[in-house]
């Protein structure tokens, strides 16, 4: 399979990249790792006439601490996330999630920015970023703005990103000391998107849930933040009855497609099962 023809650009700064995107118009696309875009170009589902490769923009790489946040450059690969000691210590759910994305080869190339910005509901990071209340830095020709992950996803492949804007970094508040976390993903095989997946970050105090945030992957047109389920669990001991109520609340906001991964009703149930498992795992990892 051979993509349609395009002109290739390799800017070395964010400004240069944004200027190119602005001046080349609607047929220009930014490319990060390209592991979503290139397969689409090979199938001719995407036919950009200009490709703006962000690989040489040094400012888009790396993981750094900034006050109470960790800022991950958009071109940081999943392989780099997995090997980041800072993230392993501060936001370990990112490592757990990255290890469940695709396969080793794809993780060497696939980037955080591409994963969160292209709006594919099958991608794993968006629900995790909603769970963590991350903020995306977006730069366009009128400068930088910050968009909450929880506000970013509008529909399948449809986000709050304006034409001509690129996501340059993801800013994530450091999870509380002693927090528990888990990302549970059901998939048919390595490399598959989730049949359903759930991200949980919670804190416990005196045997009770002090805070709880839940994200769900690939069970709707967009990733989901299950706010009500988290509220139901807060203050509980994660007893079976309350967990059941919260899981029902989470299942109620799903609207998965019936596809090769199973009928919609099955995928909704699996979202509930993944959430139940993630809650148990997060609790076992949390300090009291």
């Amino acid at each position, binding site marked *: *399979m*051979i*993509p*349609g*023809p*395009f*002109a*290739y650009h*390799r800017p070395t700064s964010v400004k240069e990249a944004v200027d190119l995107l602005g001046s080349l118009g609607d047929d220009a696309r930014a490319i990060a790792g*390209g*592991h979503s875009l*290139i*397969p689409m*170009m*090979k199938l001719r589902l995407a036919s950009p006439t200009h*490709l703006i*490769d962000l*690989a040489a923009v040094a400012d888009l790489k790396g993981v750094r601490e900034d006050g109470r946040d960790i800022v991950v450059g958009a071109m940081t690969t999943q*392989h780099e996330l997995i090997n980041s000691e800072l993230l392993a210590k501060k936001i370990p759910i990112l490592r757990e999630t990255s290890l469940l994305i*695709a*396969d*080793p*080869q*794809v993780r*060497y*190339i696939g980037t955080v920015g591409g994963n969160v910005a292209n709006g594919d509901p099958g991608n794993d990071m968006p629900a995790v970023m909603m769970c963590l209340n991350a903020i995306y830095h977006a730069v366009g020709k009128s400068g930088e703005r910050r968009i909450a992950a929880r506000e970013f996803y509008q529909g399948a492949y449809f986000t709050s990103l304006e034409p001509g804007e690129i996501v340059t970094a993801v800013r994530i508040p450091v999870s509380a000391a002693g927090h528990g976390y888990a990302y549970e993903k059901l998939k048919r095989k*390595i*490399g598959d998107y989730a049949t359903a997946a759930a991200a949980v970050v919670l804190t416990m105090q005196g045997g009770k849930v002090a805070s709880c945030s839940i994200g769900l992957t690939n069970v709707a047109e967009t990733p989901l933040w299950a706010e009500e389920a988290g509220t139901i669990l807060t203050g509980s001991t994660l007893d079976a009855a309350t967990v059941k109520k919260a899981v029902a609340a989470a299942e109620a906001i799903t609207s998965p497609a019936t596809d090769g991964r199973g009928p919609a009703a099955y995928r909704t149930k699996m979202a509930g099962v993944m959430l139940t498992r993630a809650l148990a795992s997060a609790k076992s990892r949390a300090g009291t």
Partner: protein
Amino acid sequence: MAKSQISITVNGKKVEELVEPRTLLIHFLREQLNLTGPHIGCDTSHCGACTVDLDGKSVKSCTMFAVQANGADIRTIEGMANADGTLHALQEGFREMHGLQCGFCTPGMILRAYRLLQENSNPTEEEIRFGISGNLCRCTGYQNIVKAIQYAAAKLGGVPPQEAAE
């Protein structure tokens, strides 16, 4: 579309070539450089038959444009043998342990295993299986591929290799 000049080191040799931007790395390697070791299997970045080593990473060369690899250092199966012409420990392992049947996945398997052993010289069986999870084999059931990689890890680590497979 105008061609771009790229400069890439492949198996230790520097090459300068003109490519169309839409030329995939796998097509560049196979058709322009006549390196037909990396195979086109699924052509959708699932099977790993096109895996090559690029700047210390295992990459699926069907899902990268040759222009993106400008300046890179690439190794393919054609560059795996030792300088004196003897087989690399991984190639020897695949032969000794019957790590291949039809052989189609083997170049990708070996290049992936090469990077895996660079990062982890003494992997457990589970680490090997997880490490090659982006490479599909439809013949062997993976048992002997895992043994072949264990053979190479032992040999490279100076341990006498285990007995060959039946």
